[in-house]
């Protein structure tokens, strides 16, 4: 086909895709809804949820995981648009890191050393590394689907950031159930669960986000 003909054809095609931002706004709630459904089928909210909310430890889990999700979503929203620098917004990752570091410093500074290891090992680490990725999986799927409307020049990186966002949200959801509250536990086992989703996002993203 001649380039002139191609251009005439392209100009006649007036169907426009949804912008990636809109697609995320539409699909992310759907992914979250599926995750909440999975939660309600397989898990329950910890019985001491309200009293624990008054301690620093449970709010800390939400602060770390949700700020991670927000930071990752901000980076995603820029990675899907060509020619837009995402470096400057990546600074947002300092928030979850800082909050978690603060929590760990509090544990190491305020609690006796013999409680550190039991706190890190926790009681239900195996459940955590399964359920964090499981809660995050529908969210990751929704994000990747929405991001296909975008044009990430680095599909693997964009997929990894989607995995981080999904991991953060999945972990926040699991935190409603999980009774292991030490920031050392959060760093280790939530970290592993979120890292698994991030790796999955990178691998899948490389395939499905190329354009």
């Amino acid at each position, binding site marked *: 086909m001649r380039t002139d003909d*191609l251009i005439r054809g392209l100009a006649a095609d007036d169907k426009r895709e949804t912008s990636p931002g809109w697609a995320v706004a539409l699909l992310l709630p759907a992914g979250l809804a599926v995750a909440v459904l999975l939660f309600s089928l397989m898990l329950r909210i910890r019985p001491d949820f309200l009293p624990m909310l008054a301690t620093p430890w449970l709010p800390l889990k939400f602060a770390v995981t949700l700020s991670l999700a927000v930071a990752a979503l901000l980076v995603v929203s820029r990675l899907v648009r060509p020619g837009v620098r995402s470096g400057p917004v990546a600074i947002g990752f300092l928030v979850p890191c800082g909050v978690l570091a603060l929590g760990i410093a509090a544990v190491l500074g305020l609690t006796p050393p013999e409680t550190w290891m039991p706190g890190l090992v926790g009681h239900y680490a195996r459940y955590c590394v399964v359920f964090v990725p499981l809660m995050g999986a529908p969210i990751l799927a929704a994000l990747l689907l929405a991001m296909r409307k975008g044009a990430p020049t680095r599909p693997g990186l964009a997929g990894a950031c989607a995995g981080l966002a999904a991991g953060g949200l999945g972990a926040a959801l699991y935190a409603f159930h999980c009774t292991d509250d030490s920031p050392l536990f959060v760093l280790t086992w939530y970290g592993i669960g979120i890292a698994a989703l991030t790796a999955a996002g990178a691998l899948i993203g490389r395939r499905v986000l190329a354009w």
Partner: protein
Amino acid sequence: MIDREEAWASLMRSGLAGDQAAYQTLLRALAPALRASVRRRLAGMGQPLEECEDIVQETLLAIHLKRHTWRTSDPFGPWLFTVARNKLIDHVRKRGRRIEIPIEDFADILPAAEERPGADSAEVDRHLAQLPAKQRAILKTVAVDGASVGDAARQHGMTPGAVRVALHRGFASLAARLRTEE
């Protein structure tokens, strides 16, 4: 250079707002600029120049299918150069050659754009031939024969809406085939 990008940005804004004539003007202005740039890059990398028009057409398809990722408030140049660079790298990489192209190289595309409006892309033709028959027929009627959507609808006994869908899907699957195959 900045003036040119401003003019392109304004045409793209009109195009996104539904002005098909402005959009076609933009694509016609971009084609020679892309062609000059791609030829320079290919020559610089010691790659065969006959692939130039394949890359130009792939890039025009990507610009078209991803135009909604440009925000009208953003500068147009970086968006365009990133898309063009990506398509050139993809094309060369698909053939198993590794290359690195700094983004700055694309910022200076042109100034002396040569005009070859008759240029053909063999690769696009090859993939076009594998599209579903209806999409291929609509693409040919609208692009090659220059029929309007309404005329194409009458000619093929379809509704204008169905023609629009077939046209869009045709371009989308053409781009997907160019990206993945070979």
